[in-house]
């Protein structure tokens, strides 16, 4: 297993800028983010996109890892139901997302920090509004903090 070190620079409430990792599928949401670009739809610069071929590739561990590494939020983007480039990968994502949400809740991570959105290739505007909305919500929540001792997490993720 990978040896992961928790990364989290000290943050002060005044200068806090949420760091959000996004997982976008290649065919819909990534394209929509490109469209937001070609349409010059300005949005908050807090999101870093990881491209996957399908949202179905999203292993819940990616989300957990992102939080463990200091992400304040995780955004998952896939094709609308019925529109998946691979027929039904997004349905699998949805199932995993529901389980993942329960897990995150048990870990004390607020619901708003992990979000799944269906955004089609034509919806550049939705990329903008989703990102802006999420950044504001996560900003209001403040930096991610676990309700458990840091040492415990370190122990768990280094197994």
């Amino acid at each position: 297993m990978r040896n992961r070190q928790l990364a989290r620079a000290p943050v002060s409430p005044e200068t806090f800028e949420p760091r959000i990792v996004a997982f976008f599928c290649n065919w819909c949401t990534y394209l929509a983010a490109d469209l937001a670009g070609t349409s010059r739809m300005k949005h908050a610069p807090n999101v870093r996109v990881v491209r996957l071929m399908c949202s179905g590739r999203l292993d819940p561990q990616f989300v957990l890892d992102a939080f463990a590494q200091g992400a304040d939020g995780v955004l998952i983007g896939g094709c609308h139901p019925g529109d998946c480039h691979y027929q039904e990968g997004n349905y699998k994502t949805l199932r995993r997302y529901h389980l993942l949400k329960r897990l995150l809740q048990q870990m004390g991570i607020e619901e708003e920090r992990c979000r799944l959105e269906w955004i089609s290739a034509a919806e550049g505007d939705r990329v903008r509004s989703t990102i802006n909305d999420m950044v504001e919500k996560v900003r209001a929540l403040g930096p991610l903090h676990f309700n458990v001792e840091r040492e415990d997490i370190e122990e768990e993720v280094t197994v």
Partner: protein
Amino acid sequence: MPDAVSPTNGSNGSGPRVGVYVCHCGTNIAGTVDVKAVAEYAAELPGVAVARDYKYMCSDPGQALIQQDIREHALARVVVASCSPLLHEKTFRKALERVGLNPFMLQMVNIREHDSWVHLDGKAATDKAKDLVRAAVRRVVLHKSLQKRRVPINPNVLIVGGGIAGIHAALTLADAGKRVYLVEREPTIGGHMAKFDKTFPTLDCAACILTPKMTAVGSNPNIALWTYSEIASVSGYVGNYRIQVKRKPRYIIEEMCLGCQECVTACVYKDGKTPDEFNLGLSKRKPVYLPFPQAVPQKVVIDPEVCIEFKSHKCKKTCVEACGDREAIDFNQKEQIEEIDVGTIILATGFKTFDPLRNPYYGYGRFPNVYTSLEVERLINASGPTGGEVVLRDGKKPASVGIIHCVGSRDANTNRWCSKVCCMYSLKLAHLIKERTGAEVFNFYIDMRTPGKGYEEFYDRLLDEGVHFIRGRVAEVTDWPAHPSEEGKLVIRAEDTLAAFVRRIPVDMVVLAVGLEPQPDAQAVRRMFNISCASEGWFLERHPKLAPVSTFTEGVYIAGACQGPRDIPDSVAQAGAAAAEAMALIDSQFVELEPYTAFITEEECSGCKSCIPMCPYQAISFVPEKKKAAINEVLCKGCGTCVAACPSSSIQQNFFEDDEIFEEIEGILAYA
């Protein structure tokens, strides 16, 4: 000379040597992101042997710069921070390949669409670019050599839609010796163009230029023309699609029917009683009919909804009698599903016209003499319901006609887009109506949009002909007279924005220049063919300028008004382009598929079968002898859904391996 950050000793010799290239894209990136700072930052990252920034990385000198560094600095990995990988990943992969580096040793960083173009704050954008570059450097180190899969291409082409675009594409491909399946859901090909009398701006007769092409389609041995048919399902992938076509019963054996129409004459119905679809309900047809005289194929159709034989089984069947020993009529015909294999697909499914009932204030459906432009096309057409006479419902010639532009176009309440063709066809109709009836013609327009070869000149000609033009959106059409002169007339109320007062113009006939809309089943069609629609519902092209007839699904092309409002010349040009794209693919004989398939590390597979139901392509099977899962690489399309489901991480996806993605995530979040 390119701006260079001097090669650093960042590479400590242990891992693969990475080169980082940050593109300015003119000012597109450099205007927001401090590209020099990003390159300088990258140069200090572990593993990076060289980092540079350059004006246009994708240009020849830009690529040459990378290639030179690969040779001189013995680079094993390359990171290019520029535009979206969907635009230039192929370009840079080829550049790597040409100097002997495996093309998958590249990782692209999107600092244009996802960064410089969407952020105003230069510092935040630069920080983001640094984060993304750091992630890419960490990821690319783990990249492995991959080989693209080559699969042969089936040279057959499917074309969906038999309007002018589909017809032109079919003929182009058939002339090049390709086998074409042209599938049209109506009983005849011809589409909207077959309904027109004249075409703008040359006023050449639509039938005279279209019907020879239709006949050529019908007689070309390379074209299988399947009318009255629809696509039932699509499976496979570029080069190897399997299509199921639903062939609706026309109750006529096509091979036997000669198109003599003696059955139509002999039908027990003396006169037609059913609204004729081709004439938009302006005339009536019989249960057995030919859609229009020049229909291709020249085969009649029986409408089971109105045919007495289908209703009561007690018809004298005079049609069968008239058909005689040709025996072309078969009341027991059933819907059939035929399966065909093709390598490429062209969608030319066209448009529908705006339904003016959605704009009730124009009185369509309420006042009999309010027509749509398409209905007037039929009235003007010599083979139309009135034999080319422009007459009112009572058979009289109109003395004055008002043409209302932008009905269902440029309207926030209905469709926001400009339908592009309405100004020109309104001018054409104005000319033809004036020519046929001598009526006073009033055009109510918002803006006259006449870009195109000979279009503005045509507008000038209409101005000279004495057609009236009133600039203003029409408020309503009413039959309430405000003055004795308006008695019995339709009154058009509109603000004349040039004269700055509200006009009331009484006319005998109102023509609504209805806009173009996506087909009502465009969403279902795009799902079937796995392509996207723009927000308005038009099919989405791969790139609006550089790949206007390609889609994001390889091997599927779009042509004509299914992509957006188009006139005939543009539709034909696009159809030719789509045919050329298809041919280029076919003639390369092989398609290269991305190697993003999933693979199993057998030693680690516990045989739990979790992955098997994940795959929509049945690419994973269980090998009972080994008690392990096995992936059929040919069937795998590379979504990675099984990878995420595997509890022992024994399935991985090429180019998207767990470690590669973890490294990217951690690279993004690592504080430098």
